[in-house]
């Protein structure tokens, strides 16, 4: 069977979304296993280069999980991430990549259920879109 399983890279902030994902895990919530999570100290640390590199290396989708507006541990990193995501979505669209492949969500440390829901939803969205086919070995080593 060759059913397409989306690969999603999740950049999760240490203070909120990563803890939320952790909570979903320790609470034994059922969710799609398609997200490869990368813990970052803040979504403001997620340079657009990281997101493009994830796509270039074969990710079918990228999830950015951060603190709710006003709750950023570093005051306004999540707003920077929000502005970047707006730019990126527009840019992806112009390059022929569906902007739904990039999703930014605010998930607090207590919202394990929201994390599981977002992961499930996004996995289904990407499954419907199909593979991105951007994998390139040269890029992975770069």
């Amino acid at each position, binding site marked *: 069977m060759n059913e397409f399983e989306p690969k999603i890279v999740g950049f999760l902030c240490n203070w909120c979304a990563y803890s939320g994902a952790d909570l979903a895990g320790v609470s034994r919530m059922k969710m799609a296993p398609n997200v490869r999570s990368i813990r970052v100290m803040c979504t403001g640390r997620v340079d657009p280069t990281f997101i493009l590199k994830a796509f270039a290396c074969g990710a079918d989708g990228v999830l950015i999980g951060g603190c709710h507006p006003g709750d950023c541990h570093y005051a*306004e990193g999540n707003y920077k991430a929000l*502005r970047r995501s707006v730019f990126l979505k527009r840019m992806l669209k112009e390059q022929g*990549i569906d902007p739904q492949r990039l999703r930014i969500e605010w998930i607090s440390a207590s919202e394990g259920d929201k994390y599981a829901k977002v992961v499930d939803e996004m996995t289904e969205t990407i499954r419907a879109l199909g593979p991105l086919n951007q994998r390139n070995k040269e*890029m992975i080593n770069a």
Partner: protein
Amino acid sequence: MSKPKLALYWAASCGGCEIAVLDIEEKILEVDANFEIVFWPCVMDPKYKDVQAMPDKSIDLCLFNGGIRTSENKKMAELLREKSQVLVAFGSCAHEGCIPGLANLYSKDSLFKRVYKETPTTENSDGVYPQPVTKVPEGELEIPEFQEKLVPLSAVVPVDYTIPGCPPQPHQIWAVLEHIIQGKALPPQGSVLGAGLKTCCDECPRTREEKKIKRFYRPHEIIPNETQCLLDQGIVCCGPATRSGCGGLCVKVGIPCRGCYGAAPESPDQGAKMMAALSSVIDSQDPDEIEQIVNSVADPVGTFYRFSLAGSMLGRNRK
């Protein structure tokens, strides 16, 4: 002792790089005095067979400008790689695709349709498109095949060095040639020559303050203040994401940096850095307002990747 052999070639380019070489002015005589110019289609009349007849690795230095757009470009790149000891991607087209690389946003079919059919000055009611092979009574005629995408030189052959710029600035070209004429050791393979190690902002004489942008302007929509940072004034300037080396030519005369020296050192994707830079200066925390401010940038791909789309992270992989 015989002089080292120099070759210059143009692939998919505008010819500006050739002019830039001539812009070193009287020093071109020194180039001639120190090198034997064996191949330079812009100023000499050589044929393919002349290059094919050269022994392998007999050209000491080959400056290759232009991207790889046609089958002929690719063939010449492979031939010159075979014949040259040092192959240099010269100028933005060979480096990252430059303006011709923006055509990668469209398919070959739609480009042909636009160029050979739809442009207002084109009369082509028979729908004639260029064909690689055409039969005429005298036999078959061939023209190079237009490939699906334009790729940088390094995508088809290994490249030893890169000289960025659109075009590379004459003083930088001379600095590189002089270095070689003086017989100094070459830097490690893969180095970028004739450019700086910082960003264009580093060479900009304008005063920078804290940036708070409520809308972005295109150059024709605003008369810039003469001393203040252009980005501070809301003009989209690619200085923060562009390699230094030009001397800040545009910003000194009130024109925002267009990004011609390509991605800044240690940052592989120029457009990603521009998005990061502009996202940091937008003065809003409201999603709707952010969207509105972002939309005031007229053409993000064409602006942030004006010179580097074909060499960008996503562009490099596109089929």
